[in-house]
């Protein structure tokens, strides 16, 4: 179902901290229920252009969870404040309004083999990139797709969303400082899993920093395992208007990540680099 044409104001229903990140919710009275992997372009209605004139453009933010609300759809977002835009979104107070354009972009695809005995889905998230995997995990659970979740965080201050978004399910953790789970990278956990004998028919779904995604892409390519990567690139519009979000294709030329992605099959991207 298409996004409503244009932007609309949605009310903030809550905002709380979560492991160094923030989780806030909007009430969307008009939009359809988003699919896992889709994103919205968001801008606070008030005080968006702050001192110094930024942020000016809206910011692309993945939907982390969704559910029915009294009059519409509840949209949950996981935010890491890294600059003026995400900083302002972190401060949103209940009752405030946010300009919303979306849901935009494509969604993660289901694995072809979904039987109980199949290798199923392996979700690999790092840092703020765990956001779209929360909704994906729930959807797979509802469809009886076997799911294993591997999440990596730098340290306790960068481990948001665990209690809120992944409370219900088994999660294998890695942390660079060793505060939780395996000390090291989440890709260490993935490498071990992919050498297991059932790995061939698995599909890996991943979102996180560029270096992690590149490691996931390379590991999956080496093991002949399909993967879907949710990438990031600088976005001005989110709906194909600006051509700013270019991501190189392996055969040359560029994708427009906002309309051709943000989820791209691992074999459809050249090396994942930080844009």
């Amino acid at each position, binding site marked *: 179902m298409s996004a409503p044409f244009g932007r609309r104001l949605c009310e903030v229903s809550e905002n709380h901290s979560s492991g160094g990140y923030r989780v806030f919710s909007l009430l969307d009275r008009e939009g359809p229920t988003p699919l896992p992997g889709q994103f919205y372009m968001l801008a606070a209605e008030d005080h968006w252009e702050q001192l110094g004139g930024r942020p000016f453009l809206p910011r692309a933010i993945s939907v982390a969870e969704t559910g029915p609300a009294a009059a519409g759809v509840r949209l949950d977002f996981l935010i890491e404040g890294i600059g003026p835009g995400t900083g302002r979104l972190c401060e949103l107070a209940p009752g405030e309004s946010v300009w919303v354009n979306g849901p935009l972009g494509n969604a993660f695809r289901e694995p072809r083999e979904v039987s109980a005995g199949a290798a199923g889905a392996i979700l690999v998230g790092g840092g703020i990139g765990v956001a779209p995997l929360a909704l994906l995990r729930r959807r797979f659970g509802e469809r009886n797709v076997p799911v294993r979740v591997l999440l990596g965080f730098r340290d306790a201050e960068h481990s948001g969303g665990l209690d809120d978004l992944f409370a219900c399910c088994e999660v294998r953790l890695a942390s660079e400082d060793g505060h939780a789970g395996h000390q090291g990278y989440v890709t260490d956990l993935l490498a071990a899993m992919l050498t297991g004998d059932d790995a061939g028919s698995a599909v890996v779904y991943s979102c996180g920093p560029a270096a992690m995604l590149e490691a996931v892409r390379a590991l999956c390519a080496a093991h002949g395992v399909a993967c879907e990567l949710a990438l990031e690139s600088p976005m001005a519009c989110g709906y194909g*208007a600006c051509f700013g979000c270019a991501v190189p294709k392996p055969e040359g030329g560029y994708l427009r990540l906002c309309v051709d992605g943000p989820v791209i099959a691992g074999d459809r991207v050249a090396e994942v680099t930080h844009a």
Partner: protein
Amino acid sequence: MPEFCGISLAHPVINASGTFDAIAARRVYGDALLADFPFSAFVSKTITPEPRAGNAPRRIWETPAGMINSIGLPNKGLEGFLAEDLPQLAELPVPLIVSVMATGRPEFARLVEAVADREEVAAIELNVSCPNVHSGLIVGEAPAETEALLEALRPLTAKPLIVKLTPNVADPAAVAVAAESGGADAVSLINTLKASAFDPLSREPALAAGHGGLSGPAVRPVALQQLRSVAAAIGLPAIGMGGIGSGADAAEFIAAGAALVAVGTESFRDPRAGSRVAAELDFTSPQGAAVQPALDLD
């Protein structure tokens, strides 16, 4: 109902070239786009004779009240545009203006002839912010180059030729006068202002191309002054643009001499900005002003 070069339009707000992809927007928003099309005419992204992939990322950088872009004119080339894009653009409920650019007069002529030949096309915008490979000069920065280009293109079509002026010159009015003497039907301005930014952490250029063009509200006062001087110097209608985000902004451009206005960067923030600006403009016109208090009552 504004009338522009013989084309009648539902309102005076069109899009700026390269800032709205109607084909992509229709895929995203469905036919709601057509039912409520934000612009009274649609200007295509600039097309070139051969396909172009565009520049390597990073292509955009936000600035205070604006952005710098170095997109690099990605497009399917003339053949791809005519075969794949034009039939889809013909389904839009508004007249179509095609923006073209080439690096020599013969190539420019080939584009204009091929595009003007298609009945779906109402007018042609000439993006002259490009070098002439033969002289090495940027066509739109040299009045003589601009006049010579128009003299070469004018005999090829009776359809309106709009010259998109670059703001990166000391005297844009001199280029506009040259376009008029060469036989142009209208001018549009401003294109983006040459600009650069650096990542303060890495101290590297923010954009892969090193520099780009500034757009958005940051350029609005510059655009207004250039429009004012151009409008005073020529007898042709002008399409004014540069940071328009509201009806009040558009009213300023009309006051400065614009026949039509174009919305660019604001569409990134608000996909229906064109409709909003047109509606707001209604209430800021001298005749419409009387209507506004009634709206404010409750």
